[in-house]
């Protein structure tokens, strides 16, 4: 037990998970890597990066957009685009119910949020996946919001940045979800043809159909440290090749070594890095 843990009252230590009566929830959190006990306010300030070990914890879409964009610059895009259960899909649970549950538990309207704003004075369009919303899976709403964000970039000739965090396609939307790969790709190709930068930021995890479409199509591809990124999930690969995977397989550092990403950037330096790259590509601050 270190000094920090010693000074904590025993009940408070459990609040992160237990949420006992009378104790404010979420005041303290454990780093999911080094287990250090961290003050929630401190974590918000450090953008959910552990100040002790630099582990990048997952960040929600709302927090991502608001922390990446300049204060008070954010204007939401495509918020009104909502899900329809065209197939009336039902597995052990109805898709409709899964959607309702996801909205409640993630506090997000869908698995992708989009906004325009500025980063260090540069006008940009930003999209961020919400992993807590059905694993950040890409269905028709994600695809449409992404395309509307790309359209906004196109019309205003401003760079687009996407933060991915997704398990892949949304199975409950079947082939419609697969087609979102083609849909988002088409929107990116239009930006490309008009020399409007599209930056892809890979965060933990970015897999499957999202990895194999928009996430790998960045003019610049940046990964957060240690993010898991790949086409097939590690378990599927293990079942196919029947061997255990090497250490660090499909991690950001592995991708950098294999030439799949341009750079690994600490989340706390993301705004600076991206603004500096954009400035070199001809997209500096407005005033």
């Amino acid at each position, binding site marked *: 037990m270190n000094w920090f843990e010693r000074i904590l009252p025993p009940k408070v230590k459990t609040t992160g998970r237990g949420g006992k009566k009378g104790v404010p929830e979420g005041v303290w959190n454990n780093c999911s890597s080094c287990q250090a006990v961290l003050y929630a306010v401190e974590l918000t300030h450090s953008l959910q990066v552990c100040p002790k070990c630099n582990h990048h914890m997952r960040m929600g879409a709302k927090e991502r957009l608001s922390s990446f964009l300049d204060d008070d610059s954010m204007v939401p895009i495509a918020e*009104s*685009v*909502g*899900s*329809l259960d*065209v*197939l009336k*899909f*039902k*597995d*052990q649970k109805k898709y409709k119910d899964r959607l309702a549950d996801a909205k409640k538990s993630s506090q997000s309207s869908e698995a992708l949020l989009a906004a325009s704003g500025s980063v260090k004075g540069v006008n940009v369009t930003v999209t961020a996946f919400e992993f807590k919303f059905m694993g950040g899976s890409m269905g*028709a*709403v994600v*695809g*449409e919001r992404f*395309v509307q964000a790309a359209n906004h970039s196109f019309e205003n000739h401003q760079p687009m940045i996407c933060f991915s965090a997704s398990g892949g*396609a*949304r*199975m409950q*939307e*079947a*082939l*419609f979800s*697969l*087609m*979102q*790969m*083609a*849909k988002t*790709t*088409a*929107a990116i*190709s*239009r930006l*490309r*043809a008009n020399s409007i930068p599209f930056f892809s930021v890979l965060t933990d995890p970015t897999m*499957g*159909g999202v*990895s*194999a*479409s928009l*996430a*790998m*199509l960045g003019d610049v591809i940046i990964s957060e440290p240690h993010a898991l*990124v*790949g*086409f*097939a*999930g590690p378990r*599927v*690969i293990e079942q*196919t*090749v029947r061997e255990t*995977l*090497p250490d660090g*397989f*499909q991690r950001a550092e592995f991708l950098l070594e*294999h*030439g*799949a990403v341009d750079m690994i950037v600490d989340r706390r330096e993301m705004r600076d890095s991206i603004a500096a790259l954009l400035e070199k590509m001809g997209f500096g601050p407005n005033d």
Partner: protein
Amino acid sequence: MSLDYLDFEKPIAELEEKIVELQRASSSSNLDLEREINSLRSRNHESTKAIFSKLGAWQITQLARHPRRPYTLDYIERIVTDFQELHGDRMFADDPAIVSGLGKMGGRNVAIIGHQKGRDTKERTRRNFGMPRPEGYRKAQRIMRLAERFHMPVVTLIDTPGAYPGVDAEERGQSEAIATSLEVMATLKTPIVSVVIGEGGSGGALAIGVCDKLMMLEYATYSVISPEGCASILWKSAAKAPEAAEAMKVTTKDLSRLGLVDEVIKEPLGGAHRDYDAISEAVKNAINQSLDALCEDSNEVLMDKRYQRLTGFGQFELKK
């Protein structure tokens, strides 16, 4: 009985065996069994019709994967004249899971690209069960760009369980290879026609399936994940694959009703594997007619239509 028959094909196989026996008996003796043979034939015809009139999504999935189903090279042999295969991605290797090349169809020069499965054990391994690695997709991209430069339409034949999920494939950028294929096809300035001839397995299928016109054979399937994969995630049991296949609407009939498929190519009674020549003829005609129509558009119109088609996928509601 041959192992090449599916469970629900059993009654068909049994009748066929009887017919063969009678034919043998009639030729080795002086008995005239013509009438018996003909009556068995018509019984077989009726029973096949009955069986195939009420196939479920899981049975159709099995038909799409039928070990005797015609594969890409079976079609190329019958529908393309003067086919010349072009190999390799010029970077790493030639992937036998994808076949590509140039040939002639209906008086036109075309580039043709398709997934290729193997028929016997050795060939299956060599073709990696039709599961491409990144170099397969990069070869396809190269041929597509070649087609664009020399004004040839692109024809793709889709038949894969999916892109290969392996360590080497990940190391060489499976995601990038698929993503780039999607972009090449989204922007290629020449008509693209795709036909799902068997299994349309997820991103590995779409990577050669972004097109101006999508056609599917009657008993082909197309899905975002295999029914087994979907079942093991959502039902926590791969044994629920039949339920997953129904729920995901993987069949041509359902996908066509949902507006995701532009044209259905009817198969011979009992499935494509019953008559390679007949199904090839149907596929050839469908492709040629589609290309006739697409080639009338200027490049500008073609590209505009494709962009609208691709960005139009998916339904959603607009709140407020």
